[in-house]
């Protein structure tokens, strides 16, 4: 009696027979068969496009740029209340007029208005209007 036969003694006969019949040699797949299967698979799926086409490299670059822009915008300081305008052109007296109208009725704002006006007319390079 072998070791395996000892183990089978505790099992039902039907199960022992089923296990013995399932215990067959593993089918051997040679390298040639493997290549053939690979070849057939390639021929089968050659014309099929993937459901999600591959994005070109520039799409990744564009996404990176968008993320960078978003991060830089988050890093920008918010507009201060005492800086009433951000204009791309040099500040001039029309901006002072707009500020004076916005602050109309607030006597405490006169100093702020005068400061902007003095910046407009300053002759120094730092405060020059043009």
């Amino acid at each position: 009696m072998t070791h395996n036969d000892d183990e089978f003694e505790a099992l039902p006969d039907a199960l022992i027979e089923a296990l013995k019949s399932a215990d067959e040699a593993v089918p051997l797949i040679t390298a040639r068969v493997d290549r053939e299967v690979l070849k057939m698979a390639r021929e089968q799926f050659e014309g099929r496009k993937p459901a999600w086409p591959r994005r070109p490299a520039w799409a990744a670059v564009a996404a990176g740029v968008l993320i960078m822009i978003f991060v830089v915008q988050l890093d920008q300081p918010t507009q201060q209340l005492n800086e009433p305008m951000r204009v791309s052109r040099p500040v001039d007296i029309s901006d002072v007029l707009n500020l004076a109208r916005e602050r109309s009725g607030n006597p405490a704002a006169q100093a702020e208005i005068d400061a902007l006006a003095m910046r407009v007319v300053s002759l120094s390079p730092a405060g020059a209007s043009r």
Partner: protein
Amino acid sequence: MKNLFIALVLLSFSISGQSHADEHDFRFAAVDVYLDSAEPVAAWQFELDDRAGVMKVVGVEQGDSPAYARAPYYDREAVRLGDADRIIVADYSLADAVELPSGRVRVATVHLMLNSDDDADFSLFLVTATTYDGVVTDARISLAVRTGSE
């Protein structure tokens, strides 16, 4: 004797000052700046320069319009220090549109010291003139020079 000494010292200073003044010939002039606009002007700004490089601004006076009753804005510190060889002058008015000036109006007078017998070569540039509605108006700017002597 002591009084005589003081008088001599003062006299010497006086003579010295007179000769110092003679070395530097300068004149004074006033430049009236006029703005000509078909529409009422709520804000204006100009720059006056001298291409000959002989002028120093010594003061700025307001114009004729009651809507601009106070002295206009200019770099008072540069004028005080004698550094204003050009000047930017500007003012705004919160008056109603009917009270704002239109047509030809003197908006400012710039008082100058001319440091040479050479004539100044003025360059007058209108930076902006804005209507009551905040629109830049097509205005013209001009000047008239009044000269005097020391």
